[in-house]
């Protein structure tokens, strides 16, 4: 009885997946919508995790009222508050630039979604990555699109007509130039080894041999530091250092405009963690010490593995924020150019040597 039903179900799945017509725009569209909604939920989860984990670190209780004992729905309450706030537009801001900045930041974060595979679905031995699109230069696309958000921050700083905001915007640009180079070079080193700019290929390359975090640990550390700098989190959150610059570029924003920009930052953090998992931590592949168990990778299990890794990376990023003081902007740029950039070059040479013998 059960077997019959399973057969019917598998038959339907096979028809859907095996058929190019179905696997074409429709499925991708559905995945895209799911990813869109999922990323919002994930960002809300990130905010909740940040607050809850920070409170654990600091011996506090944290959110505990809205949505049960653990305050799971706290962010919904916050969102309602932000939506219903008065939209205050300061008198002397540069209107379109000021109003467009949060939209641009949010948009750039959303643009990244389409290239990222959020796990995979394995059926009949065939891997179907849960990505909206699969194109050959997806990692390059991600790099390019994520940099658009920085233009948004500069627009916010400039359009606000506020000294603190403009200082923050300049700091952001200076930091971005310093760190985007190292970030790009580590990604290039991964690309050299795998010989592909497609994230799915990179993940599959790690599945067969070993994760890139162990192949090039130096590159992984550089990537991690640059990524945190890219996300703008402590110790690299000079662009919104509240003790120095009040709220940095966000000084003149309030209500949902602020909420949008704030949310965009968290989406950025969520997607950044995803990228770290994908290109250095093996994506949806089973961790090495569990491979011997021979658990068959079927169905949505890979997506679950991906999710678990993603949560761990997020927790690490959050933990760093609460464990370290902020460093100064001149130190940030000098670390970027004098330490990370040369090391990234060294890593590039190392990757080229690995690439000669890859796959082992």
């Amino acid at each position: 009885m059960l077997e019959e039903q399973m057969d019917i179900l598998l038959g339907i799945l096979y028809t859907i997946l095996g058929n190019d017509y179905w696997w074409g725009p429709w499925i991708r569209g559905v995945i895209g919508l799911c990813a869109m909604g999922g990323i919002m939920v994930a960002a809300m989860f990130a905010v909740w995790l940040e607050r809850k984990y920070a409170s654990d670190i600091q011996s506090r209780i944290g959110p505990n009222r809205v949505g049960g004992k653990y305050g799971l729905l706290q962010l919904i309450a916050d969102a309602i508050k932000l939506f219903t706030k008065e939209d205050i537009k300061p008198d002397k801001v540069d209107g379109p630039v000021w109003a467009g900045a949060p939209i641009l930041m949010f948009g750039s974060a959303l643009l990244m979604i389409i290239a990222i595979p959020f796990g995979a679905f394995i059926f009949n031995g065939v891997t179907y990555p849960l990505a909206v699109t699969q194109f050959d230069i997806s990692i390059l696309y991600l790099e390019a699109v994520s940099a658009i958000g920085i233009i948004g921050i500069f627009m916010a700083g400039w359009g606000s007509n506020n000294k603190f905001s403009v200082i923050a915007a300049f700091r952001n640009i200076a930091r971005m130039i310093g760190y985007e180079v190292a970030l790009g070079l580590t990604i290039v080193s991964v690309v050299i080894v795998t010989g592909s700019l497609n994230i799915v290929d990179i993940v599959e390359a790690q599945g067969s041999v070993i994760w890139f975090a162990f192949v090039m640990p130096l590159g992984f550390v550089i990537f991690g530091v640059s990524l945190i700098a890219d996300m703008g989190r402590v110790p690299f959150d000079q662009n919104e250092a509240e003790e120095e610059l009040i709220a940095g570029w966000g000084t003149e924003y309030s209500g949902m405009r602020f909420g949008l920009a704030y949310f965009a930052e968290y989406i950025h953090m969520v997607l950044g963690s995803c990228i770290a998992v994908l290109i250095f931590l093996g994506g949806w592949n089973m961790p090495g010490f569990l491979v011997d168990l021979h658990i068959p990778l079927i169905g949505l299990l890979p997506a679950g593995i991906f999710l678990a890794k993603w949560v761990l990376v997020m927790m690490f990023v959050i933990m760093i924020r609460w464990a370290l003081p902020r460093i100064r902007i001149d130190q940030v740029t000098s670390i970027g150019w004098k330490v990370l950039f040369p090391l990234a070059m060294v890593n590039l040479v190392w990757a080229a040597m690995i690439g000669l013998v890859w796959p082992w």
Partner: protein
Amino acid sequence: MVLKNFEEMIKNTFRPSVTRLCPEVPTEVSDRYRGMHKLDRDKCIGCGICAGTCPTRAIRIVRYGRWFPMIDFGHCMFCGLCVDQCPNDALTMTKEYTEAISPDRYALIYGPAQLMGEED
């Protein structure tokens, strides 16, 4: 290196939290806590020393049968000088402090009856 910090933070994650849920779990105050006043009807002689010594002039002597103090908790700063100087130890301080908050400042004026806990 910064690893020491990471270690300390991760260790701290597993320690119990030291804060408490505010209105649900009451604050533990010490025995000597200087909260709102309590007046002993039998001991008070209505001398007015408390009113004379109050730095914020929150105490006033009024007629309630005999002379008794009346305290404005909106002005009281709980320094305890009135309690110290009370010659008959009629005025004491309790651990109660939540009642000293009100949106209506006139509700904070406690007459002798309220201080003695006799009515409302």
